[in-house]
């Protein structure tokens, strides 16, 4: 029951608020903070009591939630960060903004993350995972009147969903490999070759969600959302989900043989490359975004290297830091400090609004040298590569097929009745005229015979005698000839 409540409270409250419309705007921030507080209380209770809950979902596949050691840390982190972010967000939006929709979506987003980290099987994990992606789309596109924000949301959602396909394949591979219940704990028992496909699918999904190389670019676009969205998305949810999944299935990575080193290398490469990208950014939010990707790289590296505890502590520490940094960056913007330089390059006496922000920023100031690397500024051109290699060919193929559908396939089908009509007209003109002409010829012939038949009837007796004589003569000839 406790486990259901833990995910049910944010999901239920979020769904209600998101559907309530503008009527609930005034009450929404307070309700959101209240729901987040309740969730935090439930999370702490769950961390202490370690509840479990099971419900039937599909044939032979149950929906089961459980809070174990790893989940306990995550649910408390997620709930605590959510409460902090919602408190900040209650000041971020003005009177006219759709605060009810915002708060509702945030709660749905968090609820989905809680489902992801407490699910013990692939189905429920995938459900939370994908709902999280969709709500992040709605949150990034929160200011929907501005097309570039919507486009950014589309990029983020499509990239992560493309990676999510790995989880669909993983579920199928698990079933084929003999893990009928699809539980995460049972995955390493899958038989080859399904084990390889299963591992590859999970790694792909986690890499996409965590914005690791080569799929890091969506995180840059995700900055288009409100600051509080970035704070949540970059700290305890979304990007953290990928790292969490890899930490959770660490036995599977080890069992596969090749996946653990691969994951470690991906994490290490991301940590270095995106760290450099972060250094090269001139926009504060972009800097933070790239550094998120790099920091998550350390968690991924830990998962690959088998250091679950190390990865988890990095996750918690990063969540705490980042959730404080984004509100700070957002607040700077609010005060008109539209930062085109990163902190170290700007005047050193920047008044950061909250104490936590100063501490958090300080940690980064120690780490970052001020080196303007323009080459890295564009996030290694990863998005442009995806555009060139995937999006444009797909769109071209789509247009080509649509043209084929209209101009070739549809016309080919429509040619069949057209051919029928053509045949009909042709037979109307040719065959019909012939038959008609034959009938007319018969009629004309009969008429002429009729005219001829009237010729002998002259009414004069001597001519009748002559005709009878000729007829008798012909008959006689005929008789002679026939004998």
């Amino acid at each position, binding site marked *: 029951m406790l486990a259901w409540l833990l995910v049910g409270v944010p999901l239920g409250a979020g769904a209600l608020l998101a*559907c309530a*419309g*503008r009527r609930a705007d005034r009450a929404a921030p307070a309700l959101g903070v209240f729901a987040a507080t309740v969730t935090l209380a439930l999370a702490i209770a769950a961390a202490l009591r370690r509840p479990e809950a099971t419900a*039937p*979902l*599909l*044939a*032979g596949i149950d929906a089961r939630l459980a809070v174990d050691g790893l989940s306990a840390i995550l649910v408390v982190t997620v709930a605590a960060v959510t409460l902090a972010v919602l408190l900040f967000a209650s000041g971020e939006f003005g009177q006219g903004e759709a605060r009810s929709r915002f708060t509702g979506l945030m709660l749905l987003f968090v609820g989905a993350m809680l489902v992801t980290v407490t699910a013990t099987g692939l*189905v429920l994990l*995938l*459900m*939370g995972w*994908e*709902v999280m992606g*969709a709500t992040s*789309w709605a949150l990034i*596109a929160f200011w*929907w*009147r*501005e*097309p570039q924000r*919507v*486009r950014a949301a*589309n990029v983020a*959602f*499509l990239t992560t*969903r*493309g990676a999510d*396909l790995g989880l*669909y*394949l993983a*579920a*199928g*591979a698990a*079933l*084929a490999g003999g893990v*009928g219940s*699809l539980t995460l704990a049972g995955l390493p028992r899958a038989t080859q070759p399904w084990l390889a496909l299963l591992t590859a699918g999970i790694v792909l999904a986690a890499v996409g969600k965590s914005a690791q190389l080569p799929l890091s670019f969506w995180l840059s676009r995700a900055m288009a959302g409100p600051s509080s969205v970035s704070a949540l998305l970059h700290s305890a949810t979304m990007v953290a989900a990928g790292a969490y999944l890899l930490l959770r299935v660490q036995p599977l990575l080890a069992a596969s043989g090749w996946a653990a080193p691969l994951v470690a290398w991906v994490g290490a490469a991301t940590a270095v490359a995106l760290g450099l990208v972060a250094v090269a950014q001139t926009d504060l939010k972009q800097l933070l975004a790239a550094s998120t990707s790099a920091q998550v790289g350390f968690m991924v590296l830990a998962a690959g290297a088998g250091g679950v505890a190390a990865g988890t502590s990095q996750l918690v520490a990063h969540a705490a830091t980042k959730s404080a940094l984004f509100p700070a960056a957002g607040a700077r913007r609010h005060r008109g400090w539209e930062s085109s330089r990163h902190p170290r390059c700007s005047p050193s006496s920047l008044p950061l609004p909250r104490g936590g922000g100063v501490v958090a920023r300080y940690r980064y100031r120690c780490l970052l040298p001020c080196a303007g690397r323009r080459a890295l500024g564009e996030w290694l051109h990863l998005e442009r590569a995806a555009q060139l290699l995937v999006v444009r060919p*797909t*769109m071209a*193929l*789509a*247009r080509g*097929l*649509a043209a084929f*559908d209209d101009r070739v*396939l*549809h016309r080919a*089908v*429509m040619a069949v*009745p057209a051919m029928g009509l053509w045949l009909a007209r042709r037979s109307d003109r040719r065959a019909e005229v012939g038959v008609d002409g034959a009938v007319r010829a018969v009629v004309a012939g009969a008429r002429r015979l009729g005219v001829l038949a009237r010729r002998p009837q002259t009414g004069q007796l001597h001519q009748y005698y002559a005709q009878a004589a000729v007829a008798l003569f012909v008959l006689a000839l005929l008789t002679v000839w026939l004998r």
Partner: protein
Amino acid sequence: MLSLIVFLPLAAAVVLAAIPGTVAPRLFLWSWIAVAAVDVALVVVAWIGYPGGLAYEEKLRWTSAGVGYHVAVDGLSLPLVAMTSVLFLACAIYSLRQTQRVKSFVLLFLFLQTVSVGLFVALDLILFFVYFDLSIVGMYFVIAGWGHGQARRAALTFFLYTFVGSLALLLGFIGLYLAANPHTFDIVELARSHPLTGRGAYGGLVLLAVGIGFAVKTPTVPFHTWLPPAHTDAPATGSAILAGVLLKMGTYGFVRIAMPLLPDTWRAYAPVVVVVGVVSVLYGALVALAQEDFKRMVAYTSVNHMGYILLAVGAAGLVAGSDAQARALAVTGAVTQMVSHGLITAALFLLAGVLWDRSGSYDMGSYSGLAGPAPVFAGATGLAAFSSLGLPGFSGFIAEFQIFTGSLASATVATALAVLGILITAGLFLRALQRLLLGPLRIPDAPGAARRPSRQSDHRFADLRRSEAASILPLLALVVVIGVLPRFLLDIIEPASTTLINLVSR
């Protein structure tokens, strides 16, 4: 019980036909709603009392030639019967604002409801065929009489194309009849004796005929070209019924007739079905991605969604290399997809009808930012779009997840390709949402309306009216209920799919 559910709308139509059309049109509309609501209530009663297996059976001998009136429901047909009656109720409510030749419109839809429900409960090939053909006739008149644009041309294309398909179907049925000893059209008896097992080419030809008949109706690539014009020019309710109910007659035919009656032929040609399914998935999704017309786009996504069903029923025939749990999962997913697609696509087409009603255009390029003046419309469209792209929490996910998971073992490459379909549908729906609903406001001028300054036009796109909301929102609510708590539906379907899997693997 079943006959009552089937013939109640027809009986109501006969009674209403006696009332002159000059009487207030609201009488017809409200009696239609009342009849549809009673039908839904009867279906709910049947659902609650459903004992499992083949239930509510009625059997009458009709002619000596092996044709009979045999009806019953099982786990494959009961969900479709329920979905059909719910969709007709939604269409009845949506039509409250109908003003054009109301009497004949109502009579036609009552007739269509009898035909549609009748088809799903029929257990006799000839009875099935009669309903199959009558549905084409009814829909022809709906499109030709109440459509817009080139409605008559589209209706004629639809009629001729699907009618030719139904002739192929009839040939196949006769082939089955002649093979059985004693000759019979009874589906249950034919499933028991499966007379074409081991008959080689004869079985192949019969499956080809039956398969083409159902493939045209479903429709699958390359037999789908009648669908986009028919949808684009049909009235909103016509499209909803066409996509929601009539397309399911094809897919239902596969699980009710083709698979259990021709088990070994089905297994032999299952790879062909899988390939047709995957091609439909990818082709439908890609062509939909390139559309500019919202309704045409939704029509092509139907081709995509029906492709998943073919993939699943094909994979269920690939017995080697997969266990029964996976194949049963795929079939359950296929039936769930029929219900789910019916609800979601009907909602999408009714929403497209709102677009047409307000501005007379489906062109996505001429709209922008509708979320401003019409937030409820935008929210409903967004929900319907996300459920159509298979987001968890909506019914589409429950269906597609089972299809993919169940099909991967037996049709690995095909399933891996088909999964790409949900990414492309995500792309096309996000694109459509962005163009229609988000961004700065732009609304095309309604036909005939004087061009007004843009400031006034801000308030021209009215949000969902009461009848529209009352018809569309319950459909979406059902989609969410199935997506979150699917057990009430899966408990009905799962035993039937296990039975079907056993029949196919004989």
